[in-house]
């Protein structure tokens, strides 16, 4: 039985490597956009909410509403309905590069909510402290809020990354490829179950690696 799996790995070595590279490519780009825009939108929601330091119901409603819509559309449908937007942005609706757009959007929406929550978990009096020590609003974010929320943010980003890995498995629908697509098209639909199980195992190991790394980094930076 083990020899079947070994044979499958050697037979599909090139395909597995290609699919793995595609997954990493999609993930890496999505993670970069996720961390930048997720932080920005999370911070905007945090400061504009009703008990925020710059309360603004209109901005909060718009940002929160858009993020909610992004998260509430079933992902497989979201990939399809966003094809025109992909075309508008990069000139094509299909392929690995086009797949990065819905993946980044769902990553941003997920992470922004986590960021808002992580900032809410920080002691509220820290804003007053920053003011009393002479910090401006930017310094409050960089020297106080981010410092105190950092371990929570690392764990949130870890969870978002794992979600992105999971979302990336269906990107085959618009030609995104990746490990998930290989498992479904070559493994499940071609009755090559050993390949499917190898990819499942690979995904399990990837998730475990991401979570363990995230936990370790968060623990290292949490001194509270």
């Amino acid at each position, binding site marked *: 039985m083990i020899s079947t799996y070994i044979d499958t790995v050697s037979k599909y070595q090139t395909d597995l490597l290609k699919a793995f590279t595609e997954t990493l490519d999609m993930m890496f780009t999505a993670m970069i956009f996720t961390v930048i825009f997720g932080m920005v939108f999370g911070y905007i929601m945090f400061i504009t909410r009703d008990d925020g330091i710059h309360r603004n119901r209109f901005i909060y409603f718009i940002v929160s509403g858009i993020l909610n819509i992004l998260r509430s559309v079933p992902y497989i449908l979201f990939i399809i309905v966003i094809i025109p937007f992909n075309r508008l942005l990069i000139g094509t609706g299909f392929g690995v590069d086009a797949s990065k757009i819905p993946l980044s959007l769902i990553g941003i929406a997920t992470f922004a909510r986590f960021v808002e929550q992580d900032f809410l978990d920080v*002691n509220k*009096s*820290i804003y*007053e*402290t920053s*003011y*009393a*020590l*002479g*910090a*401006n609003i930017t*310094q409050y974010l960089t*020297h*106080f809020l981010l*410092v*105190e929320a*950092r*371990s929570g943010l690392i764990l949130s980003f870890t969870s978002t990354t794992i979600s992105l890995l999971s979302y990336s498995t269906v990107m085959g629908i618009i030609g995104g490829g990746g490990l998930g697509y290989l498992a479904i098209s070559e493994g499940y639909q071609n009755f090559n179950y050993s390949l499917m199980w190898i990819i499942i195992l690979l995904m399990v190991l990837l998730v475990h690696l991401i979570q363990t790394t995230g936990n370790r980094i968060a623990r290292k*930076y*949490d*001194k*509270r």
Partner: protein
Amino acid sequence: MIVLENVSKSFLNGVKEEEVIHDVNLRINKKEIFGLVGETGSGKSTILRMINGFIEPDKGKIYIMDRELNKDSKHQLVRDTSMIFQDFNLLGNLNVLDNVILPTKFRKGRKKDEIEKAREILSFVGLTDFEGAYIKTLSGGQKQRVAIARTLMTSPKIILCDEPTSALDDRMSYEVLKLLREINDKYDTTIVVVSHDISVIKSLCSRVAIIEDGRVVEILSLTQKEIRPISYKEALISD
């Protein structure tokens, strides 16, 4: 040094505005240790937060070192003041030295000099051996001493203290009060202390305003006493 002229403040209580500070007039002199005493909810902490500009008064004027405190001047003026909080408000993810240095990051200066100054101050507050320690490993008294060291880093002309000892036991309160007195003596710093604890006010302040329902009902001059620790036995058997 600090002047409050007919200062009033309202807060939204449900749907209607409720005035919580009514026509407060105060004059706090340079190098003075001034107390604001009153029951919980009397408005003394609000007055303190109006003095450092964190809360804006609805009516009246506040002058800090002869400059009117307003939207334009408050960020400049707050840099000449510093605040000590009831719950210390230290950053748990930073060690003692980094907490102490923190306010200098918002001001110009050489990093090397700042570290040297922080070490001097840590020695002054008796925490030389703790500069690498994280806040969670410190006792309440040590935490408040770190907070005091942090306030001293910017050489403030005014230190505002909001219930500085209420989270501490008697022994640690004594240490903090003694330190505040030493700061006043050594650096000629004006100190404003808010407390509901009369013994704190009596042992530290030269003058005190009694606050009731958001009004200054009386200002008293006190004779400063020597601050000394008392044991539980002394406290229990004294009248």
